[in-house]
């Protein structure tokens, strides 16, 4: 099934300038694998190269798909989330920062 993926502006250089791309799969994990296959240059920007964890937020039709990983005490993307034909995934960069700790 075909899913639409919104690409933030800094990553469009890796998707031939496209704001939205299509990928195939039944879960978020499969969609990301297909996206990786179609646009391999995206890989370094989407994943931590050491841990292979996603560096991004992903929303499915405006819904947060993070779940609590109790073992590690943090939220992470539920890659097993099912998707259906015509759904939209949005890749959202983490926007944070601030001055140094006291």
């Amino acid at each position, binding site marked *: 099934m075909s899913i639409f993926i*919104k690409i*933030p*502006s*800094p*990553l469009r*250089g890796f998707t031939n300038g496209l*704001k939205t791309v299509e990928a195939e799969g039944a879960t978020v994990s499969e969609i990301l694998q297909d996206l990786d296959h179609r646009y391999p240059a995206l890989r370094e920007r989407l994943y931590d190269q050491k841990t292979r964890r996603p560096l991004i*937020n992903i*929303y499915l039709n*405006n819904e*947060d798909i993070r779940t609590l990983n109790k073992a590690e005490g943090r939220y992470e993307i539920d890659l097993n989330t099912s998707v259906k034909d015509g759904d939209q995934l*949005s890749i*959202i*960069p*983490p*926007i*944070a*920062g*601030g*001055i*140094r*700790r*006291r």
Partner: protein
Amino acid sequence: MPSTQKNCWTIENQAWNRILGHTVAGYPKEVCGILLCPCEKPQHIARAHPTKNTTFEDPARRYLIDPLEFLEVDNWAEQNEFDICGFYHSHPDHPCAPSEHDRELAWEGYLYLIVSVKGGVFDEGRAWTYDPDKNQFTEVIFQGKVEIDNTTA
């Protein structure tokens, strides 16, 4: 100097004054927001959208933009032929140079505008882009005169 030069940007007075008003009103906490450029003018900041600071840490020293708010602004931008081109945040009682924490979380392709507010008064505003190959920020130049509205700044 053409405004399309890599490190030359422009900003509309209305957007700049909205940023100033937000950063001063938010003192002594850090505040943050999203910068929007018309699709056909990717280095011209036409609008500034103040966002909530949703950090779980000390809000006087950290900021975090809720991904859902990012998405809502991005959806609006797409419908109105704008693009999210960067972000602003304040450094209360601190110089407006990017911190190490800012560097760790920066993305190539966005503009990071920082406003220093000292004692509740606007001190300085500067902006940078991030180069991941050099792991450093490059300061950008704002072309043209920006009229500061002193009733908000």
